[in-house]
């Protein structure tokens, strides 16, 4: 029986659940504590930094002037429209967002470092901050960066032939203007690092709460001007990332610089307030789109103008092109669009830097397509499922208007399956009865694709200077028959180690408990790209399987020699090498020991059992349908999600229990996007939401049980047949929830266009509709 496909409890959990996890802050003891002095203003000229006289021992303050020789962080896209905006480690001459690091203060405790930091005074002549799209794109707007007049850092444009003609001949034209306010990825553990200086070697080991340890090493070495061999980056247990921990932040450069400069161990453990102010934000997009339909509800053309606020800098390494260019390329989603026109811009402002957050643009583009479908259905008098059925892709491979190739999926089938679970006919009856009683129920449908597991070709197409994508895995069986997989991916809560152990166990005939997965240590793992973009199961999984197969092949050859049969006759399982059709076996551990200690007996084989495999796939699309049922309370504007259904198709599931966890967590974050979470800057560019009292992360009270079902379309796009699903929950849920709210509000002729749909926004929309009607 195979390990793949089993709902195996995560091997990571016993340690985490019994307090035996080792996080960055657990390594801070004895280190100097570092705190940042951050700009209180959003924009201005930094004329002077006043540093207090320092009397206490082991206390230091450093500013940009001290960091001479340290470069800036510069994320590069090789596109003619891309404007580079270097990000200094500590502000020099000017500040561009409230929260930007201006100086560092170090002392024996964090409290003492904060005491010191609050005595540092940054003298700033303020500029009028550029905060919104309207501010940034106004004629003659002040440039946030002198390098980027006009404030557009990246712009994708496409106007397919036939778009205008299609609109002219349309039976119906539907347009939407949708907005997602700003969010934080909000990992449970904030950022942080401990830089340990080794006096003997001069090396620094940086323990850091990150998703991309190798990339961090490269970026740090480049900015500090040192060889990568002088650095070791270790991501120990990491308490969530969701994209916020994949960029190189100035804080880590300052930390490693301080450790090298002082020849001391230095710790920076970010607190929640600092995470709100200084870490990356996400979303903040405004999408305008119009679609032409024929009278049967088929889309003829799509024309979109997409704006993404990228904040004050361009995140390294993936750049600020991530949001606008993904929106540009993937807006059509799972729908057949013959004619597509789009303009997508990344706009810089005096706000915290944007970086990827689980879902990246797709929550908004899914909302856009699904609202177009719902509104067209209403306008044309069609059933919301029928109009989708007529437009969903169903022949594979399908090439999108921007050249993306969708491998086999189950777009229509997943939607129909979700609709059956939801029992929409019954819902419509309940909805009618509820309305008669003054209660407003609604249902929303969201169909989407999730591009996952893509390798270098996809990133190269974006013209990234640094092209991520491949993975390398070392698989080694030791003399006792135990297996180590050393991977370049860097799981931070996903349960990847369990899933990879299941894959390897099947190939090698051992149990998952026999497989140890080593990740996150640049001294112990092959160079790789960490964990992001729904990639690790597909790419690190593929490479793990291929490396395990190589070891298995060697085991079979060796076993065949001992058992006197052909290698193909050897089957590995239950810890044994068995001769098929015969009653001869040998323990795998015996073969492993022999290959290490009696290698001279195996003339055709090299000693040991260590193999490496490399995998760089083109990518695969998983798909899903979400259906949300909500109740909207007109008196309070409150929205409650009563029911949430997911039918997910991510190909072969390696561990369905982990897949369900990924989906449930993602859906919760999607509901947060739709209803709760919003970072708010005031008109001066001061962040008002700097605690979890003001930034409304939903809790178990707000998130309903999530009813998850699976389909398994096997596509040849990946070697494991698995597709990525890490982001789907977050991508699909907002569109389902907003669709459900708008369905509930049909009697009031009200449409919600802004996320989160807070009680105030729902109430305002209802009041505006009432005022208009009066």
């Amino acid at each position, binding site marked *: 029986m195979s390990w793949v496909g089993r709902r195996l409890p995560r091997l990571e959990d016993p340690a985490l659940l019994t307090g035996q996890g080792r996080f960055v802050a657990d390594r801070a003891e004895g280190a100097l504590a570092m705190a940042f002095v951050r700009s209180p203003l959003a924009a201005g000229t930094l004329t002077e930094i006043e540093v207090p006289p320092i009397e206490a021992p082991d206390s230091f303050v450093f500013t940009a002037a001290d960091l001479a020789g340290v470069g800036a962080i510069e994320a590069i896209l090789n596109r003619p429209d891309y404007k580079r905006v270097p990000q200094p480690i500590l502000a020099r001459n000017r500040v561009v967002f409230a929260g930007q690091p201006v100086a560092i203060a170090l002392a024996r*405790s*964090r*409290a003492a470092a*904060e*005491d010191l930091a*609050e005595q540092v005074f940054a003298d700033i002549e303020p500029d009028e901050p550029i905060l919104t799209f309207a501010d940034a794109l106004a004629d003659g707007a002040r440039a946030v960066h002198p390098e980027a007049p006009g404030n557009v850092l990246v712009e994708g444009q496409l106007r397919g032939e036939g778009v205008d003609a299609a609109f002219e001949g349309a039976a119906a034209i539907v347009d939407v203007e949708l907005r997602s306010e700003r969010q934080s990825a909000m990992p449970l553990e904030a950022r942080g690092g401990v830089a340990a200086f080794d006096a003997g070697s001069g090396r620094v080991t940086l323990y850091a709460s990150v998703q991309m340890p190798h990339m961090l090493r490269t970026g740090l070495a480049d900015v500090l001007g040192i060889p990568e061999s002088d650095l070791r980056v270790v991501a120990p247990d990491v308490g969530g990332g969701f994209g916020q921990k994949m960029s190189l932040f100035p804080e880590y450069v300052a930390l490693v610089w301080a450790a090298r400069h002082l020849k001391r161990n230095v710790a920076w453990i970010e*607190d*929640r*307030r*600092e995470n709100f102010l200084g870490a990356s934000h996400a979303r903040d997009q405004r999408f305008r789109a119009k679609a032409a339909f024929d009278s049967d509800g088929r889309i003829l053309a799509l024309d979109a103008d997409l704006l993404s606020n990228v904040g004050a800098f361009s995140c390294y390494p993936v750049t600020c092109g991530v949001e606008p260019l993904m929106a540009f390329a993937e807006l059509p989603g799972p729908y057949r669009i013959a004619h597509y026109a789009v303009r997508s811009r990344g706009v810089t402002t005096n706000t915290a830097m944007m970086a990827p957050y689980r879902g990246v643009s797709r929550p908004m583009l899914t909302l856009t397509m699904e609202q177009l479908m719902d509104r067209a259905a209403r306008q044309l008098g069609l059933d919301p499922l029928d109009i989708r059925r007529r437009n969903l892709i169903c022949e594979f491979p399908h090439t999108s208007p921007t050249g993306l190739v969708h491998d086999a999926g189950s777009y229509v089938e997943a939607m129909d399956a979700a609709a059956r679970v939801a029992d929409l006919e019954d819902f419509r009856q309940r909805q009618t009865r509820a309305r008669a009683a003054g209660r407003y129920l609604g249902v929303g449908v969201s169909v989407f694709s999730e591009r996952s597991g893509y390798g270098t070709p996809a990133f190269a197409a974006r013209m990234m200077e640094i092209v991520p994508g491949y993975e390398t895995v070392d698989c080694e069986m030791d003399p006792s028959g135990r297996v180590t997989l050393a991977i370049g991916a860097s799981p931070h809560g996903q349960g990847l180690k369990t899933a990879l152990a299941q894959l390897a166990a099947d190939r090698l005939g051992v149990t998952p408990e026999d497989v140890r997965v080593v990740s996150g240590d640049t001294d112990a793992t092959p160079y790789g790209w960490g964990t992001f973009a729904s990639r690790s199961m597909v790419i690190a999984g593929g490479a793990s399987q291929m490396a395990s197969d190589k070891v298995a092949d060697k085991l079979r050859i060796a076993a065949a020699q001992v058992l006197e049969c052909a290698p193909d006759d050897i089957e590995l399982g239950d810890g044994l090498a068995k001769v098929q059709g015969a009653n001869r076996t040998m323990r795998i551990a015996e073969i492993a020991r022999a290959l290490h200690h009696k290698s001279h007996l195996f003339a055709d084989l090299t000693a040991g059992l260590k193999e490496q495999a490399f995998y760089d796939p083109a990518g695969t699309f998983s798909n899903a349908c979400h259906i949300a049922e909500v109740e909207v309370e007109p*008196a*309070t*504007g*409150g929205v409650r999600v009563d029911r949430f259904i997911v039918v997910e198709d991510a190909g072969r599931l390696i561990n369905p229990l982990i897949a369900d966890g990924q989906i449930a967590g993602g859906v919760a974050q999607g509901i947060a996007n739709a209803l*709760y979470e*919003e970072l*708010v800057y005031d008109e001066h560019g001061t962040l*008002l*939401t700097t*605690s979890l*009292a*003001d930034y*409304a992360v*939903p*809790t178990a*009270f*707000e998130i309903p049980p999530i009813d998850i079902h699976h389909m398994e379309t096997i596509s040849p796009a990946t070697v494991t047949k698995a597709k990525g699903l890490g982001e789907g929950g977050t991508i699909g849920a907002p569109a389902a929830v907003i669709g459900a709210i708008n369905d509930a509000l049909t009697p009031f002729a009200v449409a919600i266009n802004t996320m989160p749909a*807070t*009680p*105030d926004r729902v*109430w*305002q929309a209802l*009041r505006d509709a009432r005022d208009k009607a009066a």
Partner: protein
Amino acid sequence: MKPAAFAYLKPENLAEALQFVADNADDGKLLAGGQSLVPAMNFRLARPETLIDISGLEALDGVNDRPEALSIGALTRHATFHKPVSDGALGRLLVKVVGHIAHYPIRQRGTFGGSLCHADPAAEWCLVATALDATMRLESSGDARDVPAEAFFRGSFTTALEPNEILTRITIPKLPDATGTGFVEFARRKGDFALAMALTTLHLEGNTIRSARVGLGGVADRALRMTEIEAALVGKPATPETFVTAGQMARDQISPRGDIHGSAEYRRDLGGALLERALAEAAEEARGAVST
């Protein structure tokens, strides 16, 4: 988010606590449950030079169930009210209210008196005290005075408590047996500060309102007792129409401030809507109380 340095005093008894308070009147701060003060210190919004930790003073903990009133020790933890502290309408009402105060772990530590002294305009206990005519016992070394709720609360996070005083007990008059009570609040998430809340009591004769209490929280710089609405309700039938009218009166009388969680107009309307609900809840309970 580490507090600025402070000195720490832990008095053995109330007399010593009062002495410490008097000695540190300029820059001391009482620490009771710490559920608001400690986060404020971590944000460095509060920077007391001296913390006087009264959390161990047993004399201030616990509820005396007297025939005419509840006498609540200032250090009584919120969680004490999870179960009725007395038979009758008041005990039941406090159970309804307490479930809205923050989260379970916070209710284990936060104190009734601490909440009143903090005087957050959206605090549930402040609304209870204001709507139900509570009296605060304020003690200082060698002196004591009783201050009614309406004089105790002076505005947002501001009370009549002098720097040398400690709130020791709170007295809340009991409600007549057949009283129905209503408490409704609306927050973005369970446990958040209310965007608005309404507390009502109704005494019915048949379906006619004989007496009423109406209070609103989270819609002004302090909890409000709405005496004009109370007067207008007396003699009216306990019907949805009556409650809608009362809600409208509330909308006309309040002028809340907006913040990132809700605009002023929204909160004004919400206050009225919640009052309607709280009245309906109280009426239903009153009818049940009469029939049993």
